[in-house]
Structures are given as C-alpha cells and as structure tokens.
C-alpha cells in the first residue's frame, strides 16, 4: 500500500509508517485499536493508495455507481451527479478519496474481487449496508455521503433550472397561473372558519 506523500511533513510520515507497520513492537495495530479508530486514522492521515486521491476517472466511476445505488433511477449521464463530492465548498470533500477507497476495498472483499462500479445494484446495496453496519466512523462517512447525494440530487443544487425531474421538482420557474396553483371552486373544500380576519381569537 502506498502512503500519500505530503510535502514538508517527513517526520509525520515517519510516524505514520511506524503506525502502519504496527505499534507497539510487532503487534499489528489492528489488534489493539478498535475499527472506528483505525478508520479515523486512515481517513485523517490519508492511509490509502494515492491513486484514490488522484485518479478522477476511477473516483467518478465508483461514486456514480454509489449515487445510483442510493438513488435508483437517477440520471446516469447527469454531469453533476457526483460533483458535490469534489466541491471544496462542502465539508465532505476531504473524505471523498477515502470513500472511494473504502467502497472498492469492501466490494473486492465481499464480492470476490470485483470493483464497486462493476457490481449489480443488489450487490452494491449489500456493500453499502455492510459499511453502514461496520464501525461508527465508517457508518458516519457513508451516512454523510448518502445525505450529500440526496440533498444534491433531489434539490438540484447544481442546476437550479432543471430541478429534479425524477421527483417532478420543477426548480427555478417563472411562476404559475392560478389554475396551476389552486383548484376551481376552492370554497367547496373549506370548512367553517373561527375568525373574521384570519387572526386567532
């Protein structure tokens, strides 16, 4: 496994390599640290292969498959489908590479070496469910990623004019006619009122 290099922090790298190789002594760190801590370390110190941070094509394929699993029926060709994961304005951005790494790693482990993007929807669902049931750190990461996907897609945040056709959300609009807003003879639906002017007594 490569370790992502960051300039100017050789001493940190050295410490991380020590961590990676096992602390203390020869006891593997997996055996002494709970899963949540390991995942947090991996995420914070970027202890995963560098290509998950740099290979945008790989990340795009994996994340598209992820979003299409969370939102079946979403437009696969939507150019903004996974944009929120690379948007530095949103807090998820620092964790995107780890999410891609974790999805690929889990799918290989669960589905006999296949990468996440190659799986069918049921298998992808299984991978995500297992991640949600893993440790607290990973579960939070996945819940956050799903929340990002749903907010971004259903609310159409990158293309306000388009809205979200999947749920019939029209997005930006020039307004609606009274016929579109209300029904004919609306008084027929109204029960008695308690006030004369709409204010409470």
């Amino acid at each position: 496994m490569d370790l992502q290099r960051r300039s100017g922090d050789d001493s940190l790298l050295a410490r991380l390599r020590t961590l990676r190789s096992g602390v203390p002594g020869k006891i593997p760190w997996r055996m002494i640290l709970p899963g949540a801590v390991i995942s947090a370390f991996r995420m914070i110190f970027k202890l995963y292969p560098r290509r998950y941070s740099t290979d945008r094509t790989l990340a795009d394929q994996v994340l598209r498959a992820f979003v299409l699993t969370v939102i079946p029926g979403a437009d696969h060709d939507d150019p903004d489908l996974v944009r929120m994961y690379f948007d530095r304005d949103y807090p998820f951005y620092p964790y995107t590479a780890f999410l891609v790494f974790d999805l690929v790693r889990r799918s290989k482990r669960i589905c006999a070496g296949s990468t996440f993007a190659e799986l069918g929807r049921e298998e992808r669902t299984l991978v995500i469910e297992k991640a949600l049931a893993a440790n607290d750190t990973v579960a939070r990461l996945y819940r956050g990623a799903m929340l990002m996907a749903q907010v971004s897609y259903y609310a159409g945040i990158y293309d306000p004019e388009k809205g979200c056709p999947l749920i019939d959300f029209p997005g930006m609009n020039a307004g609606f006619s009274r016929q579109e807003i209300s029904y004919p003879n609306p008084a027929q639906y109204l029960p008695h009122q308690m006030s004369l002017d709409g204010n409470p007594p």
Partner: protein
Amino acid sequence: METLHTEVLVIGSGFGAAAPALRLARSGFEVLMIEKGPEIVPARDFRQTQDPQYLLRYIKSVRGDNVNYIYAEGLGGGSGFYESVSLRAPTIAFDQRDGAGTLMWPGSLSRERMNPYYEIAERMMCVSQLDVHDIPRSGLAFARLMKRLGYSVDRVPYSVRGCVGHSFCVAGCTSGAKVTVHKPYLAPACRAGMRIITGLEARRVRILRHDEPADSRLIAEVPYRYEVQCYDAARGSSLEVKAKILILAGGTVGTARLLLNSRAALPALSGEVGKNISVNGTVKSLGILPEDSIEGDMFTGLSHPGLISYEFLSSRGITISTSKPLPVDAVSYANIVIEGERRIPSWWGEAKVDMMKLYRRRAIVLYALGLTNPTASLRLRRGGEVVPQFSMGDDFRAYYQQTLALLHSILRRGGARVAHIRIIDAQGVEYDDLHTTTAHMTGSCRMGEDPSRAVCDASGEVFHYKGMYVTDGSAIPSALAVNPYLTILANAERVGDLLKCTYHSGRSERGHAETVYERESGIVPGHRRNRLHRYIRRAGIAPPQSPGESPRKRTPAIRRQPDR
C-alpha cells in the same frame, strides 16, 4: 481605532430593528444601523435555489443537544426569508403564567393593548387575508382533511403583493412579491437620514459614566451613554461607536450573545440574559394523503399553504397548519419511513425514491405551534460564541408526545398514512432523544416587571441601563403559538413610539411623506392587486409603477460556476 458618534445606534436590521429606526429617523434623530451580515438587495441577491451554499450565506444556526436555533444574517434580517405569515398572537398568549404562577408578559401588555401596533405593522407590511382563490393545492388538501373531521380552518393573512407562486419564499422572493423590511422601513428611514453599515458585528457594549441631567429629554443634552466595540470581519478592522440611545435588535441569539459578552462591562445586567427562551412548541408530522383525496402540490404557490386551524387553541394551546418544506429539508434533516413500508433500507434506495416521487402531490405536512414554557437558554462558550441548551422537562415531553399523537390521529382518521420522521444531524446520524429545530425562538432578554426575572421592562428599556432598549424577538417573553414576526414588529413599533415620546430631537420631522407602500396599502386590498399583477404578467407588459418607485430589476438566472 476609528470612533463614530451617533444619537441612536440600532444593532440589527430585521423586524425588531426596522421599526424604531424608521420612527426615530423620521423624528429627526441621527440614527446609525449596523448589521453583522452582508448587504442584501432582494431584487439583486435572492435566488430560486435550494443550494446550501447560497442558503448558508444568510441562514445561520446554533446547535445544542436537544435544540437548533435558525436565524438569518443579512440586511433585513429574517424578513428576507420568512414565510409572510402575518398573524397576531392569540389573547391567551398574553395571559400565560410560568410555573410559579407569575404572568410572563408585563401586566400592562395584552392583545388589546397591542392591537393598535399590530394595525400599524399590518399596514406597513401590506398584510391582507389570503383570497380564497389563491389558496395553494396543499392548503386545500389540508382543508379537506380537516373538514372531513369537522374541524375549522382559517385563511391566513400574508404580507405579500402580487405573488406568482414560485414557492421559493424561504430562499428569498425573487419576484418582489413578498414584503420585506427593505422597502417599507429601511428605504424611508435612509431617506430620513439613517445610515446603514453592513458587515459590522457588535461585539461588546461598554457603559460611559457621566453625570446625566435628570430627565433630560432633548437628545442634544443627553450624553453619550454607551460605547459599542465593533468588528468588520471583511476588512479585519475594529471600530467603536458611541451612542446616546442604544437599540439592541440582533435577534434572540444575537442580542443575548452581545449582552453575555458584555457582562463584565455591564455588571448590573440581569442574570436572566440568555435564559427563558421559548421554542414555540414546534411539532411536525408528515403523512401520505389517501387515494380519494385531492392532490396537494409542494412545489407551487406560497411556501406556507395558506390555512391554519384554531380548533385546539383554547383546549390545548396549539394551532395547526400545513407546510411545504422543499426537498432539501425533507431529505437532509430527516430519515422518513412511511407506515407499513417493509422495504429495507427504507430511507435510501428504492423506497426513498418512491417516497420522494409521492412527495410533490401526495405528501402532507402538519405542524403544530404551541404555548410551551420558555425553558431553553443560551450559554456563553469560550471564544464568545453561544450554545443553546434545552432542559426538556417532563412537561415539554408530555406536550410533544400528546401533540404528535394528535397530529397522527388527524392524519389517520383522515385516511392518510403516517410517515415517521427521524431527525438526523449534519452527518446523517439520528438523534437519540427529542430534538427540535426552530426559527421561532423568542425571549432570551425578555420583558417583565421584575429585574430578577426579566432583562428589560415593559418599555423595552434594560433594567439599570438608561437608554438601552431591546426591541427584537429576545424581548418577547413567551411562546405565541403562531409565527412570531408580526408580534415582534408590533412590539418594536410600540417601543419606537415610546422612544419618540421619551426623547425629542429638537429638529423638524424628516422624510415623512408616506411611502409607496403606506399609500398603496390603504387603498387597494392585496388580493385585488395580486390579480392585477398576474394579469399584467400574463399579458407580457411592464407592471405599473407607483410615483417615486423605481422599476423593479429582473434578476437574471444565476448559475453556479463550474468546478473551481
């Protein structure tokens, strides 16, 4: 450090700030208004979007264990983002007593005493009851549900002129139909000489000691009483403002934060600052309409669907409305599971998509607002920020469960399926206890008669600090069971009126010609004007301009920039 001097300093620019600022500016006082948030020109800055990046520029929140407070920061405060629901507080709201049996409101204040100020506020904000033909479909679906059960509903008064039903009220109205404080208050106040500085945060208040002439009413004879230390984050510079009259109107969170940070310099301040906050008894419930119901529509018409029921006001102290949260709310703050839904997972994947497909036409949201006790508070943290706390006692838990059961009962008896909402935090994790999110918090610096139980008196003047007034939601001492803006504005009008009687500028009145809004509001009822504007829009001709009113600029569609 630069120092400014002004007769009146108004901190904040929302409903609580706008009224006294206008009244005093027109009476010839030198008024300076400072606002922490950015300048907002509604016709230029508002957008039809649910993009969190846009919303979070103006909408802020503070999070606590059991409660989140949401508020707006920007010129005009909450008036840019409210739902236009313009309701007077019910009579019983003014009669509420706390656990010790003490009246929460000062004895001199009642609905009857407030009515003249409600009338002023309504006239200024062009409030009129929604025309029956303008009730959105979701409102009619709610009305039909209530009618089947024999319950009443009332059409809500709104501060809207010429609504075209974009349904983006809470993101800022782009058509200029929603009345904000900009036109009726801030613009005429500026014409009367008021200055506004945006992007300037008031951080601390210090009292300036002087021998003050007894009963000095002429403002020229009043010494500078307060020095406010301000910070301009954009420039990284500090500024001091010295004022004779200080009006605190930064909102329930902002005013309490300022006073809590100023306690060392204001030692006689009441110990009640930051306490006694009401969350207005907010309880929400989602349902799926029965097959035989008419369809609603979450995406057209006013954000608030126009109707409210007072059926349970006298018996339970609650009002019930229906609302139309946009998808971003529905998906980001809740995991929603429809009763009887057996698919797992239910909050993402196919089940969630199917629920979202039902959302526009078949979903109905009921929410109750109630007269709950003010038991929430704000605690000052290191660094000067505040964190909310909510001691959710047995009373509130019982209220919440009983009210939720009532809402579920209304849905089920009306043939709807209940959808259970599990509130989640920003990381998608469900809260393990009751959690309430509200933009209706009031009372962190409440009015009262006793300094040991309140922060300011019935005139809004802070106990022991002459010339310092609280005029925003923080002064409102109780829950109201309705949207609070009209009460905040009416109370601010009342305090502004009292200030005009207490002090004299010694100058002639300025800019007192009626504004276009004031002139129009007395002549043409809102719903008739709505029809006129809609007719004009369809006919494709420019809207008529009132004398002195500049043509409304069309806001071009603003798209987010590609990846940076």
